[in-house]
């Protein structure tokens, strides 16, 4: 309800109530007055009738008396009348309607005023003496009729008054509501437009509304003042923010540059560390195959396992930094899961034997033969989980189970009987550099990155990793990863043996382009040991010259070489082959274990690639696959 309506209602209600009360009072007063007037009228009529009938009474003329009484019928409302003698006895009577039961007292009564009858009794006097009494009874029909008329008139007056009041109120309510409405409009406008220069009018009224308007204007003025100050403040703040932002931007840029430098540093470290590691591992392997004493063999074996461990740690750190940088990507190929698991588990045989625990793996029979995924990264997950389990298990067993969940989800679980993990650590166990507690690190060693890498890789594959564990009883790590299945018809072809035995290949003429002397020595030693003939060059250009000079079956091409690098040399070889129609197998040889690098090599024309440091088996496998290239025209993948 608006103020206008409220004021209007108030005005109407008060004046309406006043009119009603006045009318009601008037009605009541009028009604009582009518009774009094009627009583007086009846008295007059009685006096007249009495005077007229005094002679008739005196002479006992009943007929004349009746006539005189009958004249009272002229007065509406009179229902009965009677004359009484001086001693009070009834002398003559009159009833308006013949045969009505209107009661007429037999002896002179006293005047009464009842709810529906008013009676009067007057003495009849003759020469100052009472000659008799006259009695008149009247009903109230006349009063009721007049009351109805008065009521109708009052209702008409009330309606008319209310109408006039309404018209007046319409005009008068404006005195109160108009300034309030104007103030409300102004307030609304101020709120909507935030224009604090607006002012409400009518502040000079001199009443409370005027004071309200005045105060409102004062408030708005204050707000205007505040706003102006705020604006000044805001501009200052904005300048400050801009300054800070540019500082932050430059800081961020610096940080990004630093981060990039770090990444580059790590990539270089990868290469720089792997290369000598390649030499250490390779040479140790070669030394172990020579005729050494048992003592020397013991030392060399420690060197070999230490180098392996070091390589693992370095790989973990590199993988982790790549994952952190978001640079790790998957390399999906078709692979046999069961065979891959078998291969992986073989690695743990010696370690389990050392710790005197059993390592059991069970692969479900219903696993699909071939899946599409990244077998290298899957292997990394399994190695991390199983390695972790072995590390924390002193006695008992470690069980690896591989099963197929609903759909194409492969569920791998690793259960151990180790020290277990408290429930509150379950969530944090997959975080970076986190082991169950700091003392664990001291006791069991390790970078603490294994589970983090496993977790990150699982997530990368769209899978889920979780742990169930009871401290003192053991732990169970679960990985559920969705894989794409290879259609059955293709499986038949691809299930052929991919890597023939190395000794069946026969002697090959191998051109080794490698600038690093250690790596070159290692590779050429390994190749020669299985009967290949090796020609060693140290630049890409020398490799091209060698190829021009003589025939080769295979080129092992290092990517990073002075003068002309491996990629350039490979591309030139392929260009010259386009003229001759020949195709020599080229294996790229690199310390860059990155997927995008591999793509670059293959784009340049390499048939396969080998990441340093490599094991003798890996070297022989890739050579064998290149050998089969010429015969089957199938491009196998090697890693």
């Amino acid at each position, binding site marked *: 309800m608006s103020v206008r309506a409220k004021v209007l209602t108030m005005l109407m209600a008060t004046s309406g109530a006043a009119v009603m009360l006045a009318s009601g009072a008037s009605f009541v007063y009028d009604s009582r007055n009518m009774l009094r007037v009627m009583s007086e009228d009846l008295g007059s009529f009685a006096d007249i009738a009495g005077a007229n009938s*005094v002679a*008739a009474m005196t*002479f006992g*003329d009943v007929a004349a008396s009746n006539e005189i009484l009958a004249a009272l019928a002229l007065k509406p409302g009179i229902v009965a009348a009677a004359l009484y003698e001086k001693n009070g006895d009834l002398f003559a009577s009159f009833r308006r309607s013949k045969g009505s039961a209107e009661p007429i007292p037999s002896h002179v009564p006293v005047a009464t005023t009842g709810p529906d009858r008013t009676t009067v009794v007057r003495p009849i006097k*003759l020469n100052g003496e009472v000659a008799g009494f006259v009695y008149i009874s009247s009903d109230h029909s006349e009063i009721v009729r007049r009351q109805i008329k008065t009521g109708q008139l009052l209702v008409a007056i009330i309606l008319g008054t209310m109408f006039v009041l309404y018209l007046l109120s319409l005009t008068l309510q404006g005195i109160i509501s108009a300034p309030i409405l104007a103030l409300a409009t102004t307030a609304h406008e101020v709120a909507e437009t935030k224009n604090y220069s607006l002012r409400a009018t009518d502040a000079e009224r001199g009443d409370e509304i005027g004071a309200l308007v005045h105060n409102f204007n004062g408030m708005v003025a204050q707000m205007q003042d505040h706003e102006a100050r705020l604006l000044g403040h805001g501009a200052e703040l904005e300048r400050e923010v801009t300054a800070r932002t540019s500082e932050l931007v430059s800081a961020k840029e610096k940080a990004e540059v630093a981060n990039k430098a770090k990444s580059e540093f790590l990539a270089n470290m990868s290469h720089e560390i792997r290369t000598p590691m390649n030499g250490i591992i390779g040479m140790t392997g070669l030394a172990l195959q020579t005729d050494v004493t048992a003592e020397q063999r013991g030392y060399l074996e420690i060197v070999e396992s230490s180098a392996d461990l070091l390589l693992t740690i370095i790989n973990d750190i590199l993988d982790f930094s790549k994952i952190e940088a978001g640079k790790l990507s998957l390399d999906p190929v078709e692979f046999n899961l069961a065979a891959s698991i078998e291969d992986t588990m073989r690695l743990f045989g010696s370690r389990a034997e050392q710790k005197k625990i059993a390592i059991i793996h069970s692969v479900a029979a219903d696993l699909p033969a071939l899946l599409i995924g990244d077998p290298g990264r899957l292997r990394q997950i399994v190695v991390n989980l199983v390695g972790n389990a072995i590390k924390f298990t002193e006695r008992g067993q470690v069980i690896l189970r591989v099963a197929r969940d609903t759909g194409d989800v492969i569920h791998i679980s690793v259960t151990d009987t180790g020290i277990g993990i408290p429930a509150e650590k379950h969530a944090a166990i997959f975080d970076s550099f986190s082991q169950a507690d700091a003392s664990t690190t001291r006791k069991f060693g390790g970078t603490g990155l294994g589970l983090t890498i496993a977790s990150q890789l699982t997530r990368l594959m769209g899978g889920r990793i979780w742990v169930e564990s009871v401290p003192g009883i053991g732990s169970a790590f679960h990985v559920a990863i969705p894989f794409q299945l290879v259609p059955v018809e293709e499986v038949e072809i691809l299930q052929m043996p991919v890597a023939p035995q190395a000794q069946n290949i026969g002697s090959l003429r191998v051109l080794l382009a490698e600038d690093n002397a250690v790596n070159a020595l290692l590779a050429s030693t390994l190749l020669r040991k299985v009967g290949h003939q090796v020609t060693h060059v140290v630049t890409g250009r020398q490799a091209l010259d060698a190829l021009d000079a003589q025939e080769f079956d295979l080129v092992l091409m290092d990517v990073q070489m002075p003068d002309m690098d491996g990629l350039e040399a490979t591309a030139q070889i392929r260009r010259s082959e386009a003229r001759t129609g020949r195709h020599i197998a080229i294996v790229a040889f690199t310390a860059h274990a990155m997927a995008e690098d591999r793509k670059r090599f293959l784009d340049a024309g390499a048939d396969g690639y080998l990441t340093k440091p490599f094991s003798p088996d890996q070297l022989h496998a890739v050579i064998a696959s290149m050998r089969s290239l010429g015969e089957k025209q199938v491009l196998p993948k090697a890693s």
Partner: protein
Amino acid sequence: MSERRFTTKWPLVLATLLFGVRADAQAPMSEPQVKAMFVYNFLKFVEWPADAAVGAKDPFVVVIIGEGATADATEQFLESKTIGERPLVVRRGHWDQSLAGVRAAFVVETDPKKLRRILDGAAAAGVLTIGEGEGFATHGGVIGLLVEDRKVRFDVDTSAAQAARLRVSSKLLALTHAVRSSVDRSGSQQ
């Protein structure tokens, strides 16, 4: 001649009054008693001239002229009555006696000459004359009592009343059937 005068020149007011006002529990009044009561009541409806030779506090004198049952009943009835505060005095009178100081006279006289004398004297003295029979009012009396259907009634000759300077109340006249005014009052004296 006088007969003609009585019937043509005298206005006649004939009123019929019901006799036996009510069924009284006690013994009903006799006709003379009713007539006596009427005589008394007539006194209440008549005004006398102010210059009459009677004081306001003087006794109200009624003279009864003549003999008869009604005369006796009237004398008896009026005894010890009052008119307002004035005591009633009833006297027996004679036809040739002066009516000075008298207010009303009940007349029983059969001789026309004597009656003429009494009525003329009464008119001159402002005396209300009341008599019996149909002829009384027609012969110059003011009020004549008569009986019809066993009921007492009365005639009022307003001309006679005027001649005596009496004012008869209209209320009394209302109890008569008709009022006729004489054309020429003085003609009756010729």
